[in-house]
């Protein structure tokens, strides 16, 4: 498994099949059991799961496309649509919930003018909600890309967003 990389921003439907092929062979030994981790690697590379990559993967490891689609839609981390340059994960876990995460989320909705799972028109942000990132003691918690922001007050949301282009 490769180490988490920074999110790539050069989104494109053009899939580098040679690179994909090598990755499936080398990192995941073409093993069906690694399907979920292969999808994660594809998503790290393209920031979402481009369909051409999935059809290629299907033929390569011999799993029907319908099964791949099933897995990609069952697990909540996967996105079949391109996502924004910055991914915001607002924690809606219980500890954050009782400390007002819902209000923070509403604030995000308002200032970005998008709902959960959506991307802003300028492609700057995608808003996702997660249920606990394991930093409950610092709730409410919000993660932007790989940066964790703890104890955020409702009126600090804009300041945090301002740090990301």
């Amino acid at each position, binding site marked *: 498994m490769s180490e988490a990389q920074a999110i790539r921003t050069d989104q494109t439907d053009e899939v580098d099949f040679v690179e994909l092929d090598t990755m499936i062979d080398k990192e995941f030994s073409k*093993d069906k059991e690694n399907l*979920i981790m292969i*999808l994660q690697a594809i998503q790290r590379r393209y920031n979402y799961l481009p369909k051409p990559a999935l059809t290629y993967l299907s033929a390569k490891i011999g799993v029907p496309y319908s099964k791949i689609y099933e897995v990609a839609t069952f697990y*909540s981390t996967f996105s079949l649509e391109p996502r924004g340059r910055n991914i915001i994960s607002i924690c809606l876990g*219980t500890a954050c919930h009782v400390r007002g995460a819902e209000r923070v989320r509403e604030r995000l909705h308002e200032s970005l003018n998008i709902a959960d799972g959506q991307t802003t028109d300028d492609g700057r942000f995608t808003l996702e909600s*997660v249920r606990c990132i394991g*930093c*409950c003691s610092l709730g409410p918690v919000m993660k932007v890309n790989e940066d964790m922001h703890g104890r955020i007050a409702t*009126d600090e949301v804009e300041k945090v967003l301002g740090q990301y282009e």
Partner: protein
Amino acid sequence: MKIQSLEDLKTISQKTRGSIYHPNTIKVNIGMASCGIAAGARASFDKAEAAFSGDDGITICQTGCIGFCEQEPLVEILADGKPRVMYKNITEEKIVDAIEDYRQGLFEKKKWILGQMRKPLGIMEDGTENPVAKVSPHEGIPFLEEIPFYSKQVKIALRNCGYIDPDTIDEYIARGGYSALLKALKKMKAKEIIDEVKASGLRGRGGGGFPTGIKWATCAKHDGERSIICNADEGDPGAYMDRSILEGDPHSVIEGMLIAAVAIGSSHGYIYVRNEYPLAVKRLITAIKQAEGYGLLGDGIAGTDFCFTIKISTGAGAFVCGESTALMASLEGKVGRPRAKYVHTVEKGFRDGPTNLNNVETYANVPPIIIKGGAWYAGMGTEHSKGTKVFSLCGKINNTGLVEVPMGVSLREIVFELGNGVPKKKKFKAVQTGGPSGGCIPEKFLDLPVDYQRLAEVGSIMGSGGMIVMDQDTCMVDVARYFLDFLKEESCGQCNPCREGIKQMLDILTDICAGKGKKGDIELLEELGSMVQRFSLCGLGTAAPNPVLTTILYFRDEYEAHIKDKKCPAGVCKALFHYDIDADACTGCGLCAKKCPQDAIAGKKKEPHQLDQDKCIKCGICYDACKFDAIAIR
């Protein structure tokens, strides 16, 4: 080097002990688990490294979660012959000054100092001389062991978290690590290992509480390609002990799995880590590589013919994959749908072979049990719940953090002594245990001891150890709605009672929270709840109604206030309350007016302000900001 014997471990241990207990420089241990990093520990670390690079007198090191998350970033500074001092809230602006304060022996930054350590020994090293016994403590600094947060703690699963650098196997070994493996491998028969675990009374820490020794024995009985799996999916929101153990002491889990493998007879191990824990994965990968380097994983372990490999798999954001059969399906690269357990996974699990699945904390407890014996472990706790349990204190509590206490300690002690009660003098309402499968325990049961049976008697469960404290500002109807909303998203959808039942219950609760509750709703919720409990396939469904049923049981008045009076007493359900300014309490400081994003508050300086209901969106910013409790919920 390949480790062959206890002697080899001793050599490494003696070499490394110095740096843990008698460093020849000033050693600065910065708590660098995810929570510490989120609080700014990485910046402090970088700052310290830059400031003291080239300074031979200071070594900057990382360690895992020190536990007292509320005070993070935590930094422990030690030097041979001086007290070990824990500094709190050491952000990058403070780190250099804190280190200088220690170096000069001033200890003047009293407000930054949490305490000094009297006994820095963990559970593995009984009999070893107390390394700081000869150091005279510094006067005027409290002892950590006497601070309520630490005083009742007994660290077994967390024995190394915050003491060692998790990326250095030698430090694990220096604290007694891998000696349990060598003992199990070379001196014990498989049955003796299992008997020891049985005698310890250790029960699964993942939620179900199944006796670990019995699980191992049953798995060992079945023939086939046996697998050992570690459940590190930790889906229960509000629980993060597994993350802390993996990030702070990954080898303890690896060693626990190895011992299980020796006892059960398996050569394949898997750790299923949730996707949200990238740092845990990184530390595990490092740990596995180091263990392989020492010949503690792989072929011919410690010179015997025992082989064992560990593969790490990451989840992809599905709570249900914490359930054993779903987890195994997910490990096989499939969707994580639970299956009926007519045939148990110990007989036919992963790849249809006999499979032993345990939780992270369960495995972490195993090495000390092997070293010190089952009887020692069983000497702690209550009749049915032995040993210690790690809890994560979060929500409306002053001391958030991880605590490990012997079973049988009361909830009141945990919440009010270790946790130091509810912040801002608000009133305690309930403590939620067991996550979405658990329940809310009201004040009247706070004297209950933590014990599998006793928590079940009041409608909750031990669960994985998340304890979320709720105060007067938490609406219990909203909490019930919240959990169902969570479970509706997470239900795998294959059985009707769970998929549809949860949705129907959620619809009713959403209506109640929106002021559209009707007479009979409570009874209908109870009826639906009992149906979902009885007819769902897996634990997600059968336990899903628990948060609703316990809140109805203990907080029925809140439900009735919502339904009959159309009021949300806690001020959470937006349709059922409004904010108002209490003219008697308002000092006219103007803080709320400045903060309100809608400009809904106005007034003259030093005179009571007014709130315009038409503009107010009930974001609560003023309520949180007011220092005089002048924003009232009506």
